[in-house]
């Protein structure tokens, strides 16, 4: 089996895009959690760890389409999706992966009411 060479490889770039997209989406107000989807296709293997709620697929060599799948609050979903895209693009730009990022898909799998407030400490 060939040894991985140092420096970013297509697989590493894909995993990095998936990770930053998942982080950006999960941090967006209005997103309750990420979801693998039904069927559970929005899953990415990131360094041996299963990351649910995001998939990154090569659109052309070195460029990936990323899709995040999530459960949201009952907010205006198109605006939420645009905000997620803005955050993912900004995260990719900061990470130096802006050119590797293609279209960003957002799939809303479910909407739920605000989670109940936990018990007072």
């Amino acid at each position, binding site marked *: 089996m060939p040894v991985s060479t140092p420096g970013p490889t297509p697989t590493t770039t894909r995993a990095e895009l998936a990770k930053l997209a998942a982080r950006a989406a999960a941090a967006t107000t209005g997103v309750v959690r990420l979801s693998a989807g*039904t069927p559970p296709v929005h899953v990415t293997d990131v360094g041996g760890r299963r990351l649910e709620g995001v998939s990154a697929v090569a659109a052309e060599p070195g460029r990936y389409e990323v899709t995040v799948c999530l459960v949201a609050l*009952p*907010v*205006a*979903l*198109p605006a939420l*999706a*645009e905000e997620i*895209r803005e955050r993912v693009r900004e995260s990719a730009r900061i990470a130096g992966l802006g050119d590797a990022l293609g*279209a*960003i*898909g*957002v*799939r*809303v*799998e*479910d*909407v739920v009411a605000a989670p109940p407030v936990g018990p007072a400490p």
Partner: protein
Amino acid sequence: MAEQRTETGSDAAVERYGGAGRDTALTRRGGATTPLDTERGKTTIAEGVVTKVAGIAAREVPGIYALGGGATRAFGAMTQRVGIGDERTQGVSVESGEREAAVDLTVVIEYGESIPQVSELLRDNITKRIEGITGLQVTEVNITVNDLHFPGDDEQPQQEEPRRVE
């Protein structure tokens, strides 16, 4: 133009209100996109989401006693007991695409309410909620009033028996 047909049968009166038949032509012009399909990516909303929003919006309308009716509600009660049903979507059927949604509802209305008035409020609220939350354009909301609810239909509370122990 709204379409109204009233059917009277052996069951409770059924009124069907069709949607306004809005223009469903594609809105793309010279690269313009829809709220869900933009040049920066596509937003997909699961049909179950639209169904859930419609079900919740229906329950917000005063005068609506329940969704579903007759056999629908009996089946729904059974599926909820075994954990595979969701009362929020019972009596709601949605067909949605990338730009539009059409909703069919079966409802039970409180006796004494104006059926046309409640139906209109129902259409307006469902349209407002689906368009506001999902961005989909609601092309029609069809409503079937399957039953009326009388307060006396509910089980009478049992008379309190004297306690046998203190």
